[in-house]
């Protein structure tokens, strides 16, 4: 039984860390502000939830599991709200999302210039 729990928690923690790496890579390399926020959201949801589930397997049925669960719930509650606030402020500053159909070979635009299209 121990070995099953260990294997499961290994899988979950490694998968969560992989999601964190993917999210970090996306935050650096995606072209648009809004796409980068999406990548950050991946870290908060998939990365955090999988790592926490892996740790819950390690902790077993104790108070630590309940606390981990509450932490995940709290972050799942507040992270979309902060992303929403960030996106709202970006929109009100005039940042337009980079759409697929204005790609006429333009370079990546700086995000503090309002879009001219």
């Amino acid at each position, binding site marked *: 039984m121990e070995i099953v729990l260990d294997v499961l928690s290994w899988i979950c923690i490694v998968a969560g860390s992989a999601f964190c790496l993917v999210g970090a890579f996306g935050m650096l390399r995606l072209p648009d502000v809004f796409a980068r926020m999406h990548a950050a959201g991946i870290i908060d949801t998939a990365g955090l939830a999988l790592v926490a589930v892996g740790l819950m397997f390690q902790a077993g049925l104790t108070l630590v599991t309940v606390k981990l669960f509450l932490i995940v719930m709290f972050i799942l*509650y507040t992270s979309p709200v902060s992303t*929403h*606030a960030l996106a*709202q402020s970006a929109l009100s500053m005039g940042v337009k999302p980079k759409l697929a159909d204005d790609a006429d070979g333009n370079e990546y635009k700086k995000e503090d210039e309002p879009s001219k299209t």
Partner: protein
Amino acid sequence: MAAAAVGMIRLRNLFAVVMLSGIFSLSAAALYVVLDAVDVAFTEAAVGAGISTVLMLGTLALTTTEEAIKPQRNIGALVVVFLTGAVLIYSTLDMPLYGDPTAPIHLHVAPRYIWDSGAEIGVPNIVTSVLASYRGYDTLGETTVIFTAACVVMALIGRGRSKVKHQLPEGAPSFGYAALKPHSVMRVTSKLLLPLIFLYALYVQFHGDFGPGGGFQAGVIFGAAFILYTLIFGVDNTRIVIRGWFRRLMMSAGVLIYAGVGVAALLMGGNYLGYSALAHEATHGQHLGINLIEFGVGTTVAGAMITIFLMFAGQDR
């Protein structure tokens, strides 16, 4: 952490510098957790990665986003800094080696705290017993420093009476909940979160005896709840929710409670801040004294945080 520090010095974009300072504080908090200093990590995360970053960002809204280049290098300043650093490093050569088990602090001070704290004070968290009882004077000084900082901010920035209202589109209400209709997501979620934050602040305040916590962290979290309210609902609403006289009362009352407990201990026949004299039994007196002074510390820190943030945020009027 070194990379963050070097980045902070070399970067000129002030927004990035503020973010790096937040990252630095967060890494420091993680380092303290690894070193088993959980109370310090808690305070560092709350103050360094939370409140400081918010205050810096609020100030940044008033200044430029790039730091001005200084064209010439100041050789005199460099020499002074090197000399001071050399003197300080030379003076550390006299100190015992880091972690040396024969150093006086490990032979006399720390064993006394660790072995006798249970019998003399009876509080499970030795950090609280050291902070609040064995080193009560220092903590009184810290609380007075926080109070002074808030007073200095009030003196420098002023009361921030709003004389000019922001320009709003016609017909838009400038006040109250109707003005926040477009921000319904943030309004609703923050109102759901605020009671939980206050509850957590009270939990940290009164749980400082048993786990990491205490007055400083609780005051910071209490202030952070008000900062969240200010960020969503505006400075005007917050000035109505928690009035000026109440904020000043909070700040002063905390220091008064702390010093007053010391005087009460004097009047009951013990030393100043000797809590054993406060009750019929020494450990009960210690518990009572620690709870009272932690309450004073929490009140002062909360009042100071709210006041400083409102002073900073109300500056663009």
